[in-house]
């Protein structure tokens, strides 16, 4: 099925809840139509490990919350012709940005050290159990994608309805600039 001239699509999930990807899957049988005209070369739903070169369209879900998100966003941007911010987290940092009112230390302490955070055994006083290795380092503030890399199109919604995602993809595949305002808005 793979063809060098077929458009190459990708989706990525950064700092978000994966709700946008659920909504993407809600396109149901229309996914098959898309798959018949384009290749999905990278996505949480496919098995590729490394983001490939020469991607035509990438839908990016989630805010930029960690150093790793910044690296990913930059790499994807450099390998993608059209980058679409998908969903309010990518557009506005949304729910993820609620942590911006606190310091990273406080956020980590809440998650890893405070009573009730589910950690067994309880941390020793004065010592944080927040991971120091392997887990990506949080940035001071979660930010929308377009504050880090250039974004070409914006698809608001929490999550954007499947119809809005379908509309956006098919418009782009048809070589037109999508304006999904009639199908979705912030918080939809």
């Amino acid at each position, binding site marked *: 099925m793979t063809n060098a001239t*077929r458009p190459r699509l990708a989706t990525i999930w950064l700092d978000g809840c994966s709700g946008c990807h659920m909504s993407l899957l809600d396109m149901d049988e229309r996914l098959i139509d898309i798959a018949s005209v384009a290749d999905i070369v990278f996505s949480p739903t496919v098995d590729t490990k490394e983001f490939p070169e020469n991607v*035509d369209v990438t839908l990016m879900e989630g805010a930029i919350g960690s150093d790793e998100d910044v690296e990913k966003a930059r790499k994807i*941007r450099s390998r993608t*012709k059209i980058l679409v911010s998908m969903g309010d987290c990518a557009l506005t940092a949304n729910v993820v940005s609620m942590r911006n009112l606190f310091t990273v230390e406080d956020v980590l302490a809440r998650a890893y050290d405070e009573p009730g955070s589910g950690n067994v055994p309880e941390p020793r006083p004065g010592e944080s159990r927040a991971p120091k290795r392997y887990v990506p380092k949080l940035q001071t503030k979660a930010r929308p994608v377009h504050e880090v890399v250039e974004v070409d199109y914006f698809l608001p919604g929490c999550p954007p309805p499947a119809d809005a995602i379908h509309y956006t993809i098919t418009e782009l595949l048809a*070589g037109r600039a999508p304006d999904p305002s009639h199908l979705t808005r912030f918080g939809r």
Partner: protein
Amino acid sequence: MTPDELSQLSVEERERQQGFEHCLNVCTAASCLSSGAEEVKKGLTTAVKEKGLREKCRIRGAGCMGLCSSGPLVALDPEDVLYQHVGVDDVPEIVESLDTQPVPRLLCDTTIPFFQRQKKIVLENSGRIDPERIEDYIAVGGYRSLARVLTEMDPDEVVQEIVNSGLRGRGGAGYPTGLKWGTVAKATGAEKYVICNADEGDPGAFMDRAVLESDPHRVLEGMTIAAYAVGATQGYIYVRAEYPLAIKRLRQAIKQAQRLGLQGDRIYETPFRFTVDIRLGAGAFVCGEETALIASIEGGRGLPRPRPPYPANHGLWGCPTLINNVETFANVAAILREGAGWFSSIGTEKSKGTKVFSLAGPLSRYGLIEVPMGISLREIVFDIAGGLPDGKSFKAVQTGGPSGGCIPARHLDTSVDYESLRELGAIMGSGGMIVMDESSNMVDVARFFMEFCMTESCGKCVPCRVGTYQMHTLLDRIYNRQGTKRDLELLSELCEVVRETSLCGLGQTAPNPVNSTLRYFRDEYEERLVSDGVRGPSGDPLAQVEMTP
């Protein structure tokens, strides 16, 4: 008091003053006071008393003499000697030398351009009279214009005289004063008000303070003439609380004027009545904006209102209100005394008279100056102020404070008038003039003024409230070498939106310092930019993707 009694008082006071062989004028305006003029004055008073010279030498607290960089200043009349950097230690020597030669080491050369190139109208009495004595003002001809106006002229004639003089508002915008007076005169209302805007707030500006501290009666006389011309009976001086000395002298001046019947009912024994009250600003810059100032006098939050309606028709408590700046009122008595023709012969075609500037920055001489309109910036910086000392080189001059702009060296020959400065992206403003040398970074300068506007924004309208914050953030980012080309584009875009959509002058002019520094010093912004956020492989993605399956 009648006009004749005024003349009588004037004559008596002059005779009294001529009874002294000498008069030592000690500058007691804020600048010299802060460098010890009060102690010098006390020292001189004591020394003269001890020497038994009290009948012979008068010690007078006088207003600002202008050359603040050489303060404390002491002038000796009638010898016309000026002493600079006078300390308490110098007092005995000065008193000893009264009948001999002046003290050479304290002499300030008064033949330098700083003194010779100025033209004094507003400041004609400044440094020459005691601002705390109404008799001093009357002795030099004060309140005579008011007498003539009340006894010989119709209100219409007064307005016409101001129209003919070509005087324009000295608060910054340069609206023709006569036109404004005419509008208020024609407006109908149960009551009319005259307001003097003394809420001088630009960083580095102290012209109005100096006028109020040095010659308060001049402003009162101007206001009273205006009230007669427009038909007002109540006036307010809105002065910022940060000017305690000006407030004290204004209060004294009002009391003195009331005592002599120059304020209150039946002024000069005519049916005309007019009273001035003082209202204190509580530190908000925006209250210098006329509608916010009016809201503040009314007792509300100092928030601007949309114009139209203009205060001339719908001002204080909904009544027609004339609102002019201190310096504008300070010109009035002189115009009526010397005539509109005399005034309009000074200056340029469209900008008449003189302008007071407060000169600051790394200059050989700085302080308060009054120059004819049309003088070049170069003459001000290099002749009057004596250029920059210690081999520093001139980079820019900032006029108009947070609403103004920075003018680079290549435009130094520009004439100082409303239109020329506006063409350069600066404004005349109220008279702050800050000279900068090469150590000033223009992004930093723009950031400073934006921070000022941000903290002084009242918060009523969105573009000013949020826009100034955003512009400050972007300037900060660029200054700290974290900004990208996109940030610079966004900054320019916000400049336009804030300028075009803000409610009042504060927001509308807040982008000026950014725009003017971008216009003349763009390289200083660009050299700080860092590489952009990563873009896609192509500049215009959609056009280049072959998408048709």
